[in-house]
C-alpha cells in the first residue's frame, strides 16, 4: 500500500500517547527517524496492515492524552498502522467522543435524553453553559443517553491528560491489556484520582501536570456539574452499583444476586458466592453439551432482537472456517438502558465467566468485550476483573487446568449508538467506520475479521450461568413457555425507586411499575427505548414477555421501561427521540440518513400543533416512516419511527 502523508508532525505528547499503545516504532516505515537500514529494507504488506483494528484504540489514546486528534497525530497513527489517512479521518470523524478540531481538555457531557430531559436536563445544560461561559476550559456537550437514567439528570466529565497510572515519559513498554488507556484498576468509586491534578482551571492541554480523569455526576445540579467539570479528580465517589438495584439483597434474585452482596473487586468473594461453578459444569458437559443446555433452556437474546442463543452458538460452532471469535456487545446505548452497566459494575466476574463459557462452547479462543465509551466505572471494573482472572488462571492458555485457551480484550466504543448493531460493531472493532454490513452473510458465518463470530449481549451471556448451574429444565421453568428465565428491566422516569429490576418473564407491566413505585399521574410508558414504543396507562396488564408485548403491538426491546407523567409534554419527547435518530444515523443508506432528518423536521413543525393542523405532517411522517422501516439497511433506520408512530396511534399525541 503506497500511502501518502502530509507534512504535519505529531507533538511529543501525541507521539508518546501512540507509542504507549503500540510500542516504539521499529523503522522509518512506521514513523521513526530514517536510518541507513531503512533504505535497504521495506516493511509493508499484510503484516503491516494487519493491525488496523488498533486504529480505534489509537484514536482513544490520543483523545485521552490530548483531548482532540490533530492532523499530525492522525498522520503519525496512520504511519504506525499502515492505514490510509483519508480512511482514518473518516473513522475519527465518525465518533461523537472524538474531535478533529482543537477543544479544551475537559469535556462535560450533559445527558439531554428522555429520562434526563424529564428531570430538567435542558435547563441544567443551559445554566451550566452560561455559568461556565467561554474560556472556562470546559466544553459542554449535549449528550445522548449516558445510561445513568436511575440518577437523572446525569453528566459525565472526561478530562484529557497524562495517564495517572503511568509515568509521563514512557520508556518502558507498559501496555495496558486491551489497548484501552486504562487507569489503576480496582480503585473504589468511579473517578480515577491522582495527586498530580492540575490547578483545575485548566486549559490543561499544555500543563504537563494535569492527569486524565473521568467522573460521573448524577444526579447533577448546576453546582455539582460545574464542580465536577473543574475538578473531576475531587468529585465525590459514585454510589455503589447496588444503589441502582432496589431489590439488592433479595435472595430470590438470579442475575442480580451478587450485586451489593459480593465485592465486585474480589475474585475470592465472587467464588464464595457461587462463581465459577457454571464454568466447571461447562467443562464437564463439553462444548456440545453446553450448547444443548443453552438450547434446551430456551434462552433468547436480551439485546433487543430475541434470537435464540443456543441456535446462534450451534451455528457458529459448526462453521468449518477458523478461528472463531466471541464478541460481547456491551455498547449499551439504547436510551433508557443501563442494565449492562449495572451488571458490569456490580458483578464483573460473572461476565468474564460467562464469556469463557460461550467461547468454550463455540470454539473461540479470543473474545472481545466492546464496551461503551461513556462507561468509565464499568471499564475499570472489567479491566480489573479480567486482569485478576488472568492472574488466577481463569483466563489464558490453560483455563482451570482443562487445556482450553481463551482470553478477553476490551475495546472501548467512542460514542456511536449504531455500533451496538452487531455488524457495525465488527466494523468498528476492525478499525473501519461503524457502518452496518449487508446481511447475509450473517455473523455466525462471516463476522469479525470475516470469520465465524458469535456476538451476545451482556445480559444474555450472564443468563448462561444460571442455565448451567440450575440446569436447562429448571431454568426453562422460570418465566413463560416461550420467554424463559429471568429478565432485567431498566425502570426510570416518573417512579419513586428507579433502577434495574429482575423479574421472571410473564410479570405484567403494572406489577413492575408498582414495584418501582409509579406515581399517580402516569401519562405514558415507553417500552424498549427510543427504538421501542409507547403504551398507555390503561395497558399495564401487558405481560412482559417477548410474545406478550408483540401481541400487544409493542416491543420489549432491551428492557427499557420509562414512565412519564403528565407534566412532560409528549411532542417534546418525540422531538428528542427524532433528534436522537438523526444524530445517530450512520449515514450509509438514504431512507435513514435523510428520513430521520425529515422526521425531525416534521415533528418540529407540529410541536405546538394538534388536530387538522398537524394532520398533513402526520401523513408525511407515516409515509417516510414506512419507507425507513421497509428499506433501511439495519435496525436503526427500521425502528426510527416506532416510538413516534406508537405515540400517535396509541397515545393520541397531536389530537
Amino acid at each position, binding site marked *: 500500500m503506497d500511502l501518502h502523508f502530509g507534512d504535519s508532525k505529531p507533538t511529543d505528547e501525541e507521539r508518546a500517547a501512540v507509542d504507549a499503545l503500540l510500542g516504539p516504532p521499529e523503522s522509518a516505515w512506521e514513523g521513526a527517524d530514517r536510518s541507513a537500514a531503512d533504505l535497504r529494507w521495506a516493511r509493508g504488506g499484510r503484516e503491516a496492515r494487519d493491525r488496523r483494528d488498533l486504529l480505534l484504540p489509537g484514536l482513544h489514546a490520543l483523545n485521552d492524552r490530548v483531548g482532540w486528534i490533530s492532523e499530525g497525530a492522525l498522520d503519525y497513527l496512520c504511519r504506525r498502522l499502515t492505514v490510509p489517512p483519508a480512511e482514518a479521518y473518516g473513522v475519527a470523524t465518525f465518533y461523537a467522543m472524538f474531535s478533529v478540531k482543537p477543544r479544551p481538555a475537559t469535556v462535560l457531557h450533559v445527558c439531554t435524553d428522555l429520562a434526563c430531559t424529564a428531570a430538567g436536563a435542558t435547563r441544567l445544560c443551559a445554566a451550566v453553559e452560561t455559568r461556565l461561559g467561554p474560556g472556562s476550559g470546559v466544553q459542554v456537550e449535549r449528550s445522548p443517553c449516558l445510561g445513568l437514567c436511575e440518577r437523572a439528570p446525569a453528566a459525565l466529565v472526561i478530562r484529557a491528560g497524562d495517564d495517572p497510572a503511568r509515568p509521563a515519559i514512557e520508556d518502558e513498554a507498559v501496555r495496558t491489556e486491551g489497548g484501552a488507556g486504562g487507569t489503576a484498576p480496582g480503585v473504589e468509586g468511579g473517578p480515577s484520582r491522582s495527586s498530580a491534578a492540575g490547578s483545575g482551571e485548566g486549559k490543561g492541554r499544555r500543563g504537563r501536570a494535569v492527569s486524565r480523569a473521568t467522573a460521573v455526576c448524577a444526579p447533577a445540579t448546576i453546582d455539582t456539574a460545574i464542580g465536577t467539570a473543574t475538578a473531576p479528580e475531587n468529585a465525590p465517589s459514585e454510589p455503589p452499583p447496588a444503589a441502582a438495584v432496589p431489590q439488592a439483597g433479595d435472595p430470590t434474585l438470579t442475575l442480580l444476586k451478587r450485586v451489593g452482596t459480593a465485592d465486585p473487586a474480589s475474585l475470592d468473594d465472587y467464588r464464595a458466592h457461587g462463581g465459577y461453578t457454571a464454568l466447571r459444569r461447562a467443562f464437564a458437559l463439553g462444548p456440545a453439551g453446553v450448547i444443548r443446555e443453552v438450547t434446551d433452556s430456551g434462552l433468547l437474546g436480551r439485546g433487543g432482537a430475541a434470537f435464540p442463543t443456543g441456535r446462534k452458538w450451534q451455528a457458529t460452532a459448526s462453521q468449518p472456517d477458523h478461528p472463531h471469535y466471541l464478541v460481547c456487545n456491551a455498547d449499551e446505548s439504547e436510551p433508557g438502558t443501563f442494565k449492562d452497566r449495572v451488571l458490569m459494575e456490580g458483578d464483573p466476574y460473572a461476565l468474564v465467566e460467562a464469556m469463557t463459557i460461550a467461547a468454550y462452547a463455540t470454539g473461540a479462543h479470543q473474545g472481545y468485550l466492546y464496551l461503551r465509551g461513556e462507561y468509565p466505572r464499568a471499564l475499570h471494573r472489567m479491566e480489573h476483573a479480567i486482569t485478576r482472572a488472568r492472574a488466577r488462571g481463569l483466563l489464558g492458555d490453560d483455563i482451570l487446568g482443562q487445556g482450553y485457551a481463551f482470553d478477553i480484550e476490551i475495546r472501548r466504543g467512542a460514542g456511536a449508538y449504531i455500533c451496538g448493531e452487531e455488524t457495525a460493531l465488527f466494523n468498528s472493532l476492525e478499525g473501519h467506520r461503524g457502518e452496518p454490513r449487508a446481511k447475509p452473510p450473517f455473523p455466525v458465518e462471516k463476522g469479525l475479521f470475516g470469520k465465524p463470530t458469535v456476538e451476545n449481549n451482556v445480559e444474555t451471556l450472564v443468563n448462561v450461568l444460571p442455565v448451567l448451574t440450575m440446569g436447562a429444565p429448571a431454568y426453562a421453568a422460570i418465566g413463560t413457555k416461550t420467554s424463559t428465565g429471568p429478565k432485567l428491566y431498566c425502570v426510570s422516569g416518573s417512579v419513586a425507586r428507579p433502577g434495574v429490576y429482575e423479574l421472571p418473564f410473564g410479570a405484567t407491566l403494572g406489577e413492575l411499575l408498582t414495584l418501582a413505585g409509579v406515581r399517580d399521574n402516569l401519562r405514558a410508558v415507553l417500552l424498549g427505548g427510543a427504538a421501542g414504543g409507547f403504551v398507555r396507562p390503561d395497558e399495564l396488564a401487558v405481560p412482559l414477555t417477548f410474545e406478550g408485548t408483540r401481541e400487544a403491538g409493542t416491543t420489549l426491546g432491551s428492557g427499557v421501561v420509562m414512565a412519564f407523567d403528565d407534566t412532560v409534554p409528549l411532542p417534546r419527547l418525540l422531538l428528542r427521540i427524532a433528534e436522537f435518530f438523526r444524530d445517530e444515523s450512520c449515514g*450509509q443508506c438514504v431512507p435513514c440518513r435523510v428520513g430521520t432528518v425529515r422526521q425531525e423536521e416534521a415533528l418540529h413543525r407540529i410541536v405546538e400543533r394538534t388536530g387538522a393542523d398537524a394532520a398533513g405532517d402526520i401523513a408525511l411522517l407515516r409515509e417516510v416512516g414506512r419507507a425507513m422501516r421497509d428499506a433501511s439497511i439495519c435496525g436503526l433506520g427500521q425502528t426510527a419511527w416506532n416510538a413516534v408512530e406508537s405515540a400517535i396511534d396509541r397515545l393520541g399525541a397531536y389530537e
Partner: protein
Amino acid sequence: MTVTPLGIPRRLLEFTLDGEPVRAPEGSTILDACRAAGKDIPTLCEGDTLTPKNACRVCVVEVEGSRTLVPACSRKAEPGMEVRTGTERARHSRKVVLELLASCVDLSTTPRVAEWLKEYEAKPDRFGPAAARLNEEPKVDNDLYVRDYDKCILCYKCVDACGDQWQNTFAISVAGRGFDARIAVEHDAPLTDSACVYCGNCIEVCPTGALSFKSEFDMRAAGTWDASRQTETTTVCAYCGVGCNLTLHVQDNEIVKVTSPHDNPVTHGNLCIKGRFGYQHVQNRD
C-alpha cells in the same frame, strides 16, 4: 482477436419473479435476473464494475418471507425465491427514497432520475421549503476535475473505486456521520494536498455528475455543454504498452472528456492520469 472469458459453467437456479418462473445462473443477483427478464429497476449506487454497496435503496424489491424489503442489486437469487418487483410496498419505498434524495441533493445531472421521479409520482417539494439540503459549494481546487458535493448521493462508488476495489490509492473516504457525512480526503484538505493521483476513476463511476471533468464543469457553467452534439469515439491510449481503451467525447471538434469502456476485460473502465486527462496534445493545431 477478442477473447470472451466464459468461466466455469454455472448451474441455473429457478425462482419466481413477479409470478413468472425464471432461471438465472447461480451467483447472479435479483437485479441481474430482472434485467435479463427485461424489467427496469431503478438503480443509483449500483455499478457494473463495483461490488454492490446497496446504500441508496432505490432498487428494493419484495421477497416472500423477508421482514423488510431487499436490495435487488446485492441480494443473490436463491432457488425457490418469490420476488415481486412492482408491489405497492416496493414502489412506495422507491418513491420516498427518490423524494428524500431529490429534496436534499441536486440531481439535475443524474441520468434518468427525472424519468423515475415522474414514474413514481415523487414530489420532493412536499417536505417544505425549509427542508435541509446539503448546501455544498463545488470544490474547484485543481485543473483536472471538480468535486461538486451538492450533487453527491453518498453512493460510496468513488470511495470503492479509489480504494481496494480498483485504484488502491485510498485518497477519499466518507467523513462525518449521518446527514453531515461527506466524501472527503484526509483532514478535509484540498485535493492537491491529498493522496489523489488524478486517475479520474472516481469520475468514471460517479452516477450523479458530482465528480466531473473541469472541462465539463466549465462548459456546463457557461451553458455550452450539449451532450446531444457530442460524438463518442473509442480508441486505444497511445501512452504506454498496456493499450487501454479510451472513449473520446468530442463536441465541436474538441475533446471534452474521456471515459473508458466498462466491459474492457483488462481495465474495466479504469485509466491513469495520462489516458484520462492527457489529451491536449491531440488538439494542438499549431
